[in-house]
């Protein structure tokens, strides 16, 4: 087995805009991914905070030109710009200003051994499940994640998504069970569920209210 590996960014198989560098190489010491916006206006960094996992994040514009928005400040970021977001709780996002913009994102939690995120690990199941979800095939989406649950029983993210898809498929029991389990593993999902439209059918259900209380 080779003791090193190489690839060009453009050769790594994409997952929508996401170029999964960490997963491709099996990097274990820090998080690293790239995101590509094919057209101007495409999102290259989703609007998010890192507060729940305490990551500091470094972004490097490798190609093209991006516009970052951080805590409401607009930051012009041509190629070779480095953006360091020190505060995990800062709201940040970026869109491509030029076609073919590529942004590298590197992150980790100071003082902690790095662990890959849920969404990277469960992708082989989450990706086909999302395709069913987008096509309105909610029962099939839920079934795909149930298969994923056998491989990753500790994944809070997978259980949360399964709760959403179960709810949309009309499976109240599964939705409530998986939501409770997701929140038990990752309390941040309580807040997410409060605003999540996927749970519209349970909004007036007392057991749902208790789960997110």
């Amino acid at each position, binding site marked *: 087995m080779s*003791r*090193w*590996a*190489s*690839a*060009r*960014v*453009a050769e790594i198989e994409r997952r929508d805009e996401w170029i999964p*560098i960490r997963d491709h*190489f*099996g*990097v*274990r*010491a*820090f998080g*690293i991914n790239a995101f590509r916006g094919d057209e101007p206006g495409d999102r290259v960094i989703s609007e998010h905070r890192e507060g729940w996992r305490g*990551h*500091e994040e*470094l972004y*490097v514009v*490798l*190609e093209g030109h991006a516009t*970052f928005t*951080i*805590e409401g*400040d607009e*930051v012009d*970021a*041509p190629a*070779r*710009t*480095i*953006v*360091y*977001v*020190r*505060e995990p*709780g*800062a709201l*940040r996002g970026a869109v491509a200003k030029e076609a073919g913009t590529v942004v*590298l994102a*590197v*992150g*980790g*939690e*100071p*003082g*902690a*051994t*790095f662990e890959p995120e849920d969404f990277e690990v469960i992708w082989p199941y989450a990706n086909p499940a999302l395709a069913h979800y987008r096509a309105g095939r909610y029962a099939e989406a839920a079934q795909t994640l149930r298969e994923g649950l056998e491989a990753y029983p500790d994944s809070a993210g997978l259980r949360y998504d399964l709760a959403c898809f179960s709810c949309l498929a009309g499976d109240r029991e599964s939705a409530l069970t998986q939501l409770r389990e997701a929140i038990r593993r990752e309390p941040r999902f309580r807040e997410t569920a409060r605003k999540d439209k996927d749970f519209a059918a349970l909004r007036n259900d007392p057991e749902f209210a208790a789960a997110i209380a």
Partner: protein
Amino acid sequence: MTKPYEVLSIDDLDRIPVAEGLEWRPIRRRLGIRSFGTNAYTSERVGGWVVEEHVEGSGHEELYVVVSGRARFTLDGEELDAPAGTIVFLPEHDVSRKAVSEEEGTTVLALGGWPDKPFAPSAWEWYFEAYAHEPERGVEIMREGIAELGERPWLLYHLACQEALAGRRDDAREHLRRAIELDPALAERARDDDDLEGVEP
């Protein structure tokens, strides 16, 4: 109030000459990153180093990104052509690695850390920078390193060197003595080090 973020261009990074055309462009220390190591390296001339020849004695796994230009890596004796946009990942710390610039202004971004424990900065970040300044400033930089990382033998050793270069022989003697206390192997290095001429531990 301090902003929760900082923005700069790779072109704004300091250039600290190291060897064979390689310029160290500190990122981690400049920004105060605490969860992984990261720096850029540039060579303005073809054939200059963009990754110095080394094995990763720290035990880090390392990932290199060719940001601009074109580099030629040599990894355990095997050559790799690496135009801009190439990523090279070395999970094994003892792979011998080197990269030279194939185009003027080639820049490589390096990232590193341990897979099984939290990141901690390396002492070399301070002493590489110290030697790029006048000795008085070098002394300050080494003291900053000790304030951040604590008493490490190499930090004390290079503090002693900077103090000797600044003409502060008593301070140099004291810090060299302490460095050798912590790592007796440094005594031999000190004997042959021109920076420490006339400084007996």
